[in-house]
């Protein structure tokens, strides 16, 4: 769902780890642990693997030891901030299959963009690249859903103004969801840029607020592990 999905969508050239969004069920947890066992993966950070903690939004971090995957980190989550429940994420996923039949199941680009709206500075250029890559690939084949996605998520004044020229009625409809489109209508590029920055800062603040209680828990987990509890 993370960097590896970004590679498929063209927003990254490689990722040093594998992030998995997982359906929270006993059967699935058993399959995950069996797979991690085959990779000789060991947990490398707090918290411990616990479905209750995953359900609260924590990630569990593993590192593979030995074999082709030696050193590779695998991060597992079952809940992501502001994203739909797993069943819906799965229903709208992207599936890619190669000539040998190998299949790759990816978070949809819309959900990946939402997942990348974090407090981390490095995630925001990735969102730009995800949306631009999508527009470059499919801009010639607009559908209602795609136009809505581009208008909702494009992050450059130039692209927003182009979208408004191409899809004015759809853009008008979206103003109530994304007020900065009104500035784009008036062609105020610098004002749009400032509003885009403010939009990012607001999302980062929401993400920090979401993580604050989880980080407080982390610190408790770290203390407990250091003390050997």
């Amino acid at each position, binding site marked *: 769902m993370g960097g590896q999905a970004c*590679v498929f969508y*063209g927003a990254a050239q490689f990722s*040093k780890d594998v992030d998995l969004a997982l359906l929270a069920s006993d059967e699935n947890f058993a399959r995950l642990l069996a797979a991690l066992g085959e990779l000789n993966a060991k947990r490398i950070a707090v918290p411990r693997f616990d479905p209750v903690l995953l359900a609260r939004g924590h990630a569990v971090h593993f*590192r593979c030891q030995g074999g082709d995957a030696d050193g590779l980190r695998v991060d597992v989550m079952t809940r992501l901030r502001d994203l739909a429940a797993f069943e819906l994420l799965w229903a709208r996923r992207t599936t890619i299959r190669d000539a040998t039949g190998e299949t790759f199941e990816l978070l949809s680009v819309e959900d990946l963009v939402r997942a990348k709206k974090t*407090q981390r500075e490095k995630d925001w250029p990735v969102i730009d690249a995800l949306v631009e890559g999508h527009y*470059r690939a499919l801009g010639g084949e607009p559908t209602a859903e795609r136009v809505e996605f581009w208008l909702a998520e494009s992050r450059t004044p130039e692209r927003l103004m182009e979208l408004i020229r191409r899809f004015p009625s759809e853009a008008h409809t979206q103003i109530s969801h994304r007020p900065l489109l009104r500035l784009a209508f008036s062609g105020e590029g610098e004002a749009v840029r400032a509003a885009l920055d403010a939009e990012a800062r607001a999302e980062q603040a929401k993400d920090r607020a979401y993580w604050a209680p989880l980080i407080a828990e982390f610190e408790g987990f770290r203390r407990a592990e250091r003390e050997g509890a």
Partner: protein
Amino acid sequence: MTFEEMPDEWQEWLALTPLERFRESEKIFAHYLAMGGSLDPDPDPTSPFYDPETSSAGAAYGRPGLRVLRRGAV
């Protein structure tokens, strides 16, 4: 940055199919590892997972076999 403003390298990357990108990424990853690249996360104080006690400053230019022998003034 719009697609048109992206460097040629990125435009060429986006021109590949998703599977072509994945296969190319595997090669880049293999090169990275062959050069001694670290699989540790990059230190990122803006990440909720950042732990200053366990995060190192990173090896010189991402390679554990390299040491900085000389630096400029900054």
